[in-house]
């Protein structure tokens, strides 16, 4: 393991402690990752600001999912450093040495980095409440009653107040993914990682999941989203990162990367993704909506997907207060 040359010593504290942001600062420096002879990540440098929304785009095999999985150490990096709020993930750094952390420590670090998977990965033998309450109970030692009360609160937030005691297999894909989001939120993570959260869903179920993610942009958590939903990226992202062949090709605000891509490869990718009806819908949108605040109204291309009835019942109205449990300061 060698360090990427020329990295500045990392800061140990949040540069703006007074702003009391709930989101974590993610710094990815000189990250390489190989699976055998195959080099999947070839030197990634990326700074993800606290509370920001970053969307990672790229063709399949470009390494975007692997990058996401290195952030919570599901994939250890081959070279380089990843830190959240200045804390190196997976290692303890002493000068030039990186001591591998014990699993217990890695698990503690992961409790502040939530993850939502493409295939949901809900615990099939547990009810929705059980799924959401499991991690707080087992990883943080929250008493069962309290963990389950919080779980109900979170499930209500994602619009599933009528599905508390239902098993995952009795839910639609969109509902399962919403449970998975509630489960990831239950640990009050500083960073939330989404690995193609809507790719396994039927088209008419995509919007209800995107609506939930959109509502989270208000919670102040740092969101990193790997997706193919270009219009969603335009709507919510502060930064769009385009990756290809293990490298970041370009990054910037959606208005730049999506509408005025500088790179030929980005242009070609966007062309390929926006085919048929999608291209027709999105082309007459030269100006992008303000990226930080989630727009209360769905974006211009939304009518293409009539939103699911339950999606409208979500607590997505920007005036609805988020549960205090989510927005109060982190203790641990």
């Amino acid at each position: 393991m060698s360090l990427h040359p020329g990295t500045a010593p990392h800061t140990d504290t949040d540069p703006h402690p007074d702003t009391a942001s709930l989101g974590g600062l993610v710094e990815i420096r000189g990250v390489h990752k190989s699976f055998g002879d195959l080099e999947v990540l070839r030197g990634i440098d990326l700074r993800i600001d606290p509370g920001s929304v970053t969307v990672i785009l790229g063709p399949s095999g470009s390494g975007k999912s692997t990058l996401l999985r290195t952030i919570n150490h599901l994939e250890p990096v081959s070279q380089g450093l990843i830190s959240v709020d200045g804390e190196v993930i997976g290692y303890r750094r002493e000068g030039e040495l990186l001591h591998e952390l014990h699993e217990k420590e890695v698990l503690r670090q992961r409790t502040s980095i939530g993850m939502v998977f493409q295939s949901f990965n809900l615990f099939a033998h547990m009810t929705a409440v059980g799924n959401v309450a499991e991690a707080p109970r087992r990883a943080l030692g929250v008493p069962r009653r309290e963990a389950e009360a919080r779980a109900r609160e979170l499930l209500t937030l994602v619009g599933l107040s009528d599905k508390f005691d239902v098993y995952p297999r009795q839910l639609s894909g969109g509902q399962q993914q919403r449970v998975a989001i509630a489960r990831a939120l239950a640990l009050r993570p500083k960073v939330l990682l989404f690995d193609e959260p809507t790719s396994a869903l039927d088209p008419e179920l995509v919007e209800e999941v995107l609506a939930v993610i959109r509502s989270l942009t208000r919670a102040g958590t740092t969101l990193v989203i790997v997706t193919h939903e270009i219009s969603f990226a335009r709507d919510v992202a502060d930064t769009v990162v385009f990756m290809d062949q293990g490298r970041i090709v370009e990054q910037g605000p959606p208005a730049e990367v999506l509408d005025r891509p500088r790179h030929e490869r980005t242009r070609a990718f966007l062309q390929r993704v926006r085919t048929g009806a999608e291209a027709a819908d999105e082309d007459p949108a030269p100006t992008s909506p303000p990226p930080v605040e989630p727009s209360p109204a769905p974006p211009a291309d939304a009518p293409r997907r009539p939103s699911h009835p339950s999606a409208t019942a979500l607590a997505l109205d920007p005036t609805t207060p988020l549960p205090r449990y989510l927005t109060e300061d982190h203790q641990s």
Partner: protein
Amino acid sequence: MTSSVVSPETTQRTPTATPAAGHATATGHHEMSCPPPAAPPEDLSRLRVVPARHPGRVVLAVGVGLLVAVVLYSFVTNPRWEWGVVAQWFFAESIIRGLLETLKLTVMAGAVGFGLGLALALMRLSKSGLISSVSWTFSWIFRSTPLLVQLLLWYNLGYLYERITLGIPLTEITFFDARTSDLMTPMLAAVLGLGLHQAAYAAELIRGGILSVDQGQLEAASALGIPARDRSLRIVLPQAMRAILPTAFNEIIGLVKGTSIVYVLAHAELFFTIQLIYGRTQQVLPMLLVATLWYVVITSALSVGQYYIERHYSKGAVRTLPPTPLQKARARLARLRPTPTGAPA
């Protein structure tokens, strides 16, 4: 299952038939079919499903029924089964004592077998090469040795090691010291032999169950920071149970009958007791029938238990649990009662 088709032949037999009756799916009405109305908008709600007939099944059922009847008849009428002797001994005190001994052996060997088997399975899946090869070696040895040899080996441990001593080597300090032959009762030898043998098999079957659980479950649990112990015991094992249970009950039922091999150690379990009795009375077949009937009783009880335990662990794996036989029977009764004078089927 079957989407019924009203064929033109059927409709033509009725007086007011119209050739308009075409192909359509039925809506599940149970009334007798009426001729389709002459009016152009055909009333599809009148279509009814005729269940497919299976004449082969009927023939087979009759054949099987006859065979069963012949066997039962011979059982009852053949005097050499000596049913009187069976009845006389079935609840005899010595038999019941032997039966309890068999159950005790099963429970203890089963506990050793599956407890150790679980540990071995988890060891085998460990990332540490040393731990996993220890587990592999255990299974290798204990699956390769005949059970009979293992039992005799444990029972004769005193021949190999005269005393068993626990203390600090090279000092005079001993915590425990005994003659091996005093320690190694037939019961202990039987539990060790059966239990360790069972553990080697249980380890493989539990490992198989664990491997059948989707990798994403572990990944999600790791990503949520759930500790390794809880990942195994709360996330993976409960889901592995579905794959483990049918084979595990096979093994337990095998173990119940497997305890009969312990007769070589002259331990008075059910089978040894039976042998003692027929050795004296010479009523060999009726006594073996007594043993068999008791094994059938135990196996039946275990099968009922298996059904309900499997049902418990299928929660979440199936969308809706099928009703239990008891629930089905109750539902059937409830359906029968309100219509005592039902229409002819």
